[in-house]
């Protein structure tokens, strides 16, 4: 089996894994710039911790249940995957035959980590560090790992034939709708809607966006699991949709508000990245322009809707990742073309794939939302989710970390 390992594919997958790893702290900066200066450390630290917690969970048992032997399409389990002890040599023929098993494990790990990071959007500026840690372990184990199994680990959605190239469903829909659940349950920040809460450091958010865009090449083009034509197509699609997303949000907000904010350009880029994620290896570059443009405009309007409804899903994981991922999952069923991969979508007359995509998206939304609701309630009853009012007032940096960001 070792004989089949390709150095080129491995080189690309390892580089991709490093790129995806950088996305999680990148997300921390993206989010951190948008909160008030009294909470920036808390925001970045939660992303670091998402990476740290999931890294350990994944090695010990996360990979074993997400990618182990399928049990009724629901969950996986392979005892020899616990602690990765049985994966030190050789490759995983049913996942990525040309790269070492551990390269695949590491690559998948980074997806699990950032997914948890995305949800912190809904916890911004108000949750206990301890609650986040407990919630994080539970959520990754009970929401992420099963979903990853369903879609990529030979679970029921994979068997059904739903397509998700790099995680539109598993990563973005799941985290986005979970963030919505969290926001609805734990409630608004003190003063939300009463006075404005300005982003404290927009260049930090733009830097975070740059690192996300950069790392996302690993996310999407790495998901080809080989270094060849498919990776190259996914790469071009990723960049194209991102650019179109940035332009879409920019023009939409320019028209509506008279001026295009840089946060809109950055959010549009992320919306484009999210939307192309499930589609990257199935569509062509011209479709990517459409997917990105629509994502930018759509997510902008969903954000306006969220604000109008007074929902404090503070950093718009739901608007951008949730609905952007939903659009991407559906768009995959619309634009998939056999010129790129072996699947075709609605515009080529394949209604079946389109329906499958909707089934996959909806079941992920329901599963993620419902289980998140339960987990939030459990954590809230036990650890307590929110900090005390004075702690929120002085900020989480001081109250949770005993630190002041800038001095």
């Amino acid at each position, binding site marked *: 089996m070792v004989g089949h390992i390709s150095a080129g594919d491995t080189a690309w997958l390892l580089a991709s894994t490093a790129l995806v790893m950088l996305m999680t702290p990148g997300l921390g900066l993206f989010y951190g710039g948008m909160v008030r200066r*009294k909470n920036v450390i808390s925001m970045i630290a939660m992303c670091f911790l998402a990476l740290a917690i999931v890294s350990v969970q994944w090695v010990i048992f996360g990979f074993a249940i997400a990618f182990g032997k399928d049990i009724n399409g629901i969950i996986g389990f392979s005892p020899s995957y616990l602690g990765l002890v049985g994966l030190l040599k050789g490759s995983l023929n049913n996942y990525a035959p040309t790269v070492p098993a551990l390269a695949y494990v590491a690559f998948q790990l980074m997806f699990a980590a950032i997914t948890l990071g995305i949800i912190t959007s809904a916890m911004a500026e108000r949750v206990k560090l301890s609650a986040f840690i407990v919630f994080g372990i539970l959520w990754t184990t009970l929401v992420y790992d099963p979903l990853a199994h369903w879609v990529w680990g030979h679970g029921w959605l994979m068997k059904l034939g739903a397509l998700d190239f790099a995680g539109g469903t598993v990563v973005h829909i799941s985290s986005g709708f979970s963030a919505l659940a969290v926001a609805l349950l734990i409630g608004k920040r003190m003063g939300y809607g009463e006075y*404005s809460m300005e982003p404290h450091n927009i260049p930090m958010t733009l830097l975070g966006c740059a690192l996300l865009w950069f790392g996302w090449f690993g996310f999407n083009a790495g998901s080809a699991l080989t270094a060849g034509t498919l990776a190259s197509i996914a790469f071009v699609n990723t960049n194209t949709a991102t650019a179109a997303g940035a332009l879409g949000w920019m023009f939409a907000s320019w028209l509506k508000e008279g001026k295009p904010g840089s946060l809109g350009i950055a959010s549009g880029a992320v919306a484009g990245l999210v939307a192309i994620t499930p589609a990257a290896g199935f569509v062509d570059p011209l479709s990517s322009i459409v997917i990105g443009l629509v994502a930018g405009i759509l997510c902008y309007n969903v954000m306006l809707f969220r604000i109008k409804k007074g929902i404090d899903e503070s950093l718009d994981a739901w608007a951008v990742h949730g609905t952007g991922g939903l659009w991407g999952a559906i768009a995959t069923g619309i634009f998939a073309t056999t010129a790129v991969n072996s699947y075709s979508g609605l515009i080529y007359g394949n209604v079946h794939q389109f329906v499958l995509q909707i089934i996959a998206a909806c079941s992920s939304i329901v599963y993620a939302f419902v289980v998140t609701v339960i987990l939030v309630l459990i954590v809230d009853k036990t650890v307590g989710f929110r900090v005390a009012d004075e702690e929120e*007032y002085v900020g989480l940096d001081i*109250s949770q970390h005993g630190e002041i960001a800038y001095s």
Partner: protein
Amino acid sequence: MKKVEAIIRPEKLEDVKKALESRGIIAMTVTEVRGRGEQKGIKLQFRGGTMDVDLLPKVKIEIVVDDSKVDAVVKTIVSTARTGKFGDGKIFIIPVESSIRVRTGEVEK
């Protein structure tokens, strides 16, 4: 002429600005400061003990007005910036002998 020096919660600045504006008080100078009152900031409880957070962020508004307007300014600030909780702030009235407009050099007493 007097300088009204109000130290208030940063999150109340917008409201205070608007309230003053509606009463015709436009000109002002704003400084970011940190402060603590008699009750010494906020006490946080945590597993390892407690922690005093003093020198919380505040905003200082300085408004130089004719003596006749001082009361109106103070009342407006008090009614807008108040939350009723510790840390709402203080207003100090300081005498100003004269004021000069840089653009024109004209002096007001």
